[in-house]
Each structure stands twice: as structure tokens, then as C-alpha cells.
């Protein structure tokens, strides 16, 4: 990621017509990216903003836009956080395994398996989550209800179908595992070799070496990896739409059959039968999701950019 550029070649002045055309094309492509992002916002706003003030029947069983999107946004964040809590420790562990713990013969296949996980289409995850994982997690729901019911997250009653935020969060966790692992792995590998060997030479155990010379170096990388994973989880659609039993509510209860939907899953499941009014409402919720994920990703990338700058100094 950090390419050290030594003594840049003196770029030839773009004089010939061919050069000018080519540079124009390249610059235009760069500008297209900016234009595309702006266009996403503009078109969603044009079609979506009227969705904020539609007649109450478009928001049934609620009455107006903000309560409607508020519950959805809450559900989106809740499911994404559950996914993060499950995925982050595993991702850190796997990344460490690949970068520092595993023998090479094992590190490569494990890295490959995690990458393959990223290649599985989300609709297949949804199918698997709804038909296989959900029913298998029902006993877990019952167990949590029985033994951890004093926590507001596991207040119960435990769902008998497994179509809960807990299941959806688990599926999401599997889906965001590869991206968090990949980024963490990259920053772990980049930790300065000299520091590591110095730590080992001073008699540190392997874990102490990791804690003292890898983690401080990788801290901002981990933070941004986790936030990028959060961004992914916020926008994931099909897996949640196929797994979750959704109602428009605010609840922290992860294991009961009453769960808040996420913005993306609500769009996917309400879309087919939407009247033009409802369509505008759904696009408006999409705009909210766009702004929210944009903010999260923006923050994550800014953290990375700042730390890269700091390291360069």
C-alpha cells in the first residue's frame, strides 16, 4: 500500500496531440468517478426526497417518514454491530495466525479459504442462513434465553424459528470476516521486522512480541478494518432479507421473534409490491443508508490516510 517513490522520472511534457488526447481521456475517467458519486447522491435525492412527505398509508403501520426510517436505521446498526462483535475477534485471530503463528504450509490455505468466503454470493449466504443455519441456532436461542436472560440482549422469549437478529448477525459476521481479515493481515505483515526480532531477542514470548511490537504499529489499521467491515455489514441486503423476521420496532432483544428490519432488507422485501408512493419512500430510505455508510467509510478511510501519513514521516 505504501509505495516508496524514489526519484520520480521527470515526466515528459505532454506536447504531441496523441499525448494530449490520451491525458484528456485519463483525466476524464478520473473525473467520471467523482461525477458518478455525485450522480448517485443527486438521483437518489431527486427520486427520494419526495418520499419524505407521502400520505400516511405509505408508512403503515407507522404514520410518517422519520419514525419509519428511524426503526430501520436502528435495526441496520444493531445487526451490523452484532456482526462486528462476532467477526472482529475471529478476524484478528485469523489475521495473526496467517501473519505470525501458522507454519507457511498452513497459512496459505487458510488465507485462501478466507478469500473464498468473500467470493460466495450473498444470496447463497441468505439461502443457507435461512434454510440451514437458522434452524440449527434455535437451541442456542433457547440456551441464551435460559442462562443469559438477565441481559437485555437475551431477554427472550427465544425464537422457535431462529429468524432473529442473532442469526442474521452471525451470517453477516461470516460475510464481513474476509475483508477485516484481509486488511488486518496486510498491516500485521507490514509491522517492522526489526522491532519483532528485537522483542524476541530480549526474551519476550511470541504473544508479548505481538502485543508490544505488532499491535501498536497496526492499531489504526485494525480500527479502519473494523470500520470497513461495519460499512459492509450496514449495506448487506439479501442475507438479512432472507433470514430476518421483521417488525417496525426498537428493541435490543436479539433472540425474540420481534426484530427490527434493516434499511437494505426492507427495500428488498417491500420493493416488488411497491406503489409509486412507496417506491419513493424506499428510495428515500436508500438515501439515508447511502449517507450513513458514506460517513462510516469516509471516517474509516480518513483514519487510514492519517496514519499512513504519520508513518511516512
Amino acid at each position: 500500500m505504501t509505495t516508496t517513490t524514489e526519484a520520480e522520472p521527470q515526466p515528459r511534457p505532454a506536447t504531441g496531440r496523441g499525448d494530449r488526447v490520451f491525458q484528456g481521456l485519463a483525466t476524464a475517467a478520473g473525473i467520471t468517478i467523482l461525477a458518478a458519486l455525485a450522480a448517485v447522491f443527486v438521483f437518489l435525492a431527486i427520486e427520494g426526497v419526495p418520499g419524505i412527505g407521502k400520505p400516511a398509508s405509505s408508512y403503515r403501520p407507522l404514520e410518517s417518514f422519520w419514525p419509519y426510517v428511524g426503526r430501520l436505521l436502528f435495526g441496520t446498526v444493531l445487526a451490523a454491530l452484532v456482526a462486528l462483535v462476532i467477526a472482529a475477534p475471529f478476524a484478528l485471530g485469523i489475521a495473526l495466525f496467517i501473519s505470525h503463528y501458522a507454519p507457511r504450509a498452513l497459512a496459505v490455505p487458510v488465507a485462501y479459504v478466507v478469500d473464498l468466503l468473500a467470493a460466495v454470493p450473498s444470496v447463497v449466504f441468505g439461502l443457507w442462513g435461512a434454510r440451514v443455519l437458522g434452524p440449527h441456532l434455535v437451541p442456542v436461542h433457547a440456551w441464551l434465553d435460559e442462562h443469559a436472560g438477565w441481559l437485555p440482549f437475551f431477554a427472550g422469549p427465544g425464537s422457535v424459528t431462529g429468524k432473529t437478529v442473532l442469526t442474521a448477525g452471525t451470517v453477516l459476521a461470516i460475510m464481513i470476516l474476509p475483508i477485516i481479515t484481509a486488511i488486518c493481515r496486510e498491516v500485521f505483515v507490514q509491522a517492522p521486522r526489526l522491532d519483532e526480532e528485537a522483542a524476541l531477542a530480549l526474551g519476550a514470548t511470541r504473544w508479548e512480541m505481538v502485543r508490544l511490537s505488532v499491535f501498536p504499529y497496526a492499531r489504526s489499521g485494525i480500527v479502519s478494518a473494523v470500520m470497513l467491515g461495519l460499512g459492509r455489514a450496514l449495506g448487506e441486503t439479501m442475507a438479512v432479507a432472507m433470514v430476518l423476521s421483521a417488525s417496525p420496532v426498537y428493541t435490543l432483544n436479539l433472540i425474540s421473534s420481534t426484530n427490527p428490519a434493516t434499511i437494505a432488507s426492507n427495500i428488498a422485501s417491500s420493493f416488488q409490491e411497491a406503489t409509486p408512493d412507496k417506491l419513493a419512500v424506499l428510495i428515500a430510505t436508500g438515501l439515508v443508508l447511502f449517507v450513513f455508510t458514506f460517513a462510516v467509510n469516509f471516517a474509516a478511510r480518513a483514519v487510514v490516510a492519517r496514519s499512513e501519513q504519520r508513518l511516512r514521516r
Partner: protein
Amino acid sequence: MTTTLEEAPPRRPLTMTAPRLPGWAPVLVGVLAVCGSGLLALLAGWGAVAVFALAVLGFLVALPLWSLAVEGQRSATDRLMTSLVWTASGVAVVPLAWLVLTVVRHGLPEVNASFLTFDMRNVVGDQQGGIYHAIIGTLLVTLAAAAISVPIGLFCAIYLVEYGKGKRLARWVTFLVDVMTGIPSIVAGLFALALFVLLFGPEIRLGFGGSVALSLLMVPIVVRSTEEMLRLVPDDLREASYALGVPKWRTIVKVVLPTSLGGIITGVMLATARVIGETAPLLVVAGKTDSVNVNLFGERMTTLPVYIYYQFTQPGTVPFDAPPGTEAPGIARAWGAALVLIAIVMALNLVARLVGRIFAPGTNQKKG
């Protein structure tokens, strides 16, 4: 950092080495943990998953405790973390294996020649239907998406590497490309829908809209991978070309791009593999139909992921006289299509890696 390290453990025994657990200790604890939990499970009548979970837990507790008793706290922590890291990696393999096995087990009986060459027109109940129209749709929509994103992505990367160094615009583009990789796919779909609805009215659904949405997701991936590949091209090559009086654009076309071609193709194929399985954007803008449609610019077009979704949500009815446990016919089709889709994605991934290896620098230069 160094201050903590200086706090070496008090050397009570007057030996030169600290006491260590023997090398076979983890194996012994592992075997004991499996046996112990197996015995408990036999008494309580639990399943295999519980035995496994209990064994892992037993190992995670027992080994550090033993180490604590013999080796002291630092080693115990080290052993605990090592075990945890290994466990995390082991557990990570479980979902993929479970998922792939499930898809193959449910999907394989469904996939046959008819399934691959039939569409769903006039298919009622559990008659033989197929995914032909969905495969066509997926190929066309994805190819069109690639046709849009590859030129844009390629030129954008060229701009960033060759022309934009140090410019404010380039910094913004780099940053926003990164941000763009995080756009939720459904938002891309809604964008394409909003765009075409504005142009053609609220009932518009077309395959090309799906391509536009997918290219929004694909462009940043192509830019990132191409950019990385272009940066790998040594500056010596460029300078040699300039020294011969070749204009910059010809240098790029004749020297830089051919040198990094393998990596660029790999990147493009990986990007294709990433978007070919997207469902949400196609669901909203490409719609679904039962029949083959080869016109990207007219009417609805079913793609494989959308096909899977609809077979899952509208699987048809189970006849009343069917034996209990019979699934609705759509569920089997959904598994079959999922198997085909996974196969396509994995194949693209493998081919991409293969291409990357064939074109890897070194072998590339030998031939002309």
C-alpha cells in the same frame, strides 16, 4: 515498550533455563480434552457439536492452567493466545465447508442437462424448469457491466499513476475510489433505478440498468487493482522508452500496459467474480421474467442470483398428497441454481489466479 521487558521473572530456581512443558504437552491435553468431553457427552447424551465445543473449551482452559503451574504467568498467557489464534482459524473454516457441502448436497441432484437448458416459461408446479434464461441474463448483464467499467477503471488508474502524481484531483479520486468500494450494493441498484425511472417512467425495468448498477460497484475494484499493477512497473522501463524519444502515451500503451497486462486481467476477472453474484441491485432494476431475453435494453431480464431469490420466496406449493417433509419445488431449484452460481464464481476466481500466475513477471518477458 522496553521497560516492561526488563521486568524479567524472578529467578528462584538456580538453573539457567526456566522450566518448560514438554513438547508433547498440547497433544496430551488435546487428547484428554476430547476424551473428557466425549465421556461427559455419553453420560448426558449430547451431539457431536457439543462434544467438539466442549473439547475446545477444555483445551483452552487446561493447557494455560498447566502452563501457569509449571512455566509461570507469561508463558501461560502466551499459550492461551496461541491456542485462541489456532482455534479462531480452525473455526473460520467451518462455515465455508458447511455452506459448500450443503449447497452441493442439495444442489447436485437438481443440476442436469435439462436444468441448464430449460427456462421457466409455462412451467407449473414441479414440472422440469431450468435456469437457462438466468444464465443468459447473468452473462449479458455482467459482460455489459465489465464493458462499462473496464475502460473507465483502466483510464482512471492510468491517470492516477501516470498523470496525476501530486495533483489535488488525483488525491481526491484515490480517496473517493476507496470510499466507493463501500457503497452498499442496494444503493447502487436504487441509483440505477432512480436514473432510469427519471428517464423512462416508473415502470421501467431493463437488464442494462443492472449493468449500470454493477459497474458502479465494479469500477473502484478495477481502479484499485490496475493502479497497484501499474505502480509495479519499474520506472526504468518508462525512462528507457522516453530516452528513445517515444511519446508518453505510446510508452503507456506499448510498454507499461503490456508489462502489467497479466495483473490487470486478473484484477478485472476478480472484479467480475465479485459482481456476478450481486443480487440486490438486479432485483430492483433488472426485474424478473420466466423467458429468455437477450435484449439488454428492453424488458426485464432474470439473472441467476435473482432467480435464486425468487425460487426461495415463491417456491410454489407442496401437493397435499405428497409425503411429509416434501419441499416445495422452488427450493430445490434455488439450491441447484446456487450450486451453478458458486461454480461460476469459483471458476472465475481460479482462472483469474491462473492467469495471474501465467502472466507473472519473469515468464512475461521471455516471449516477445
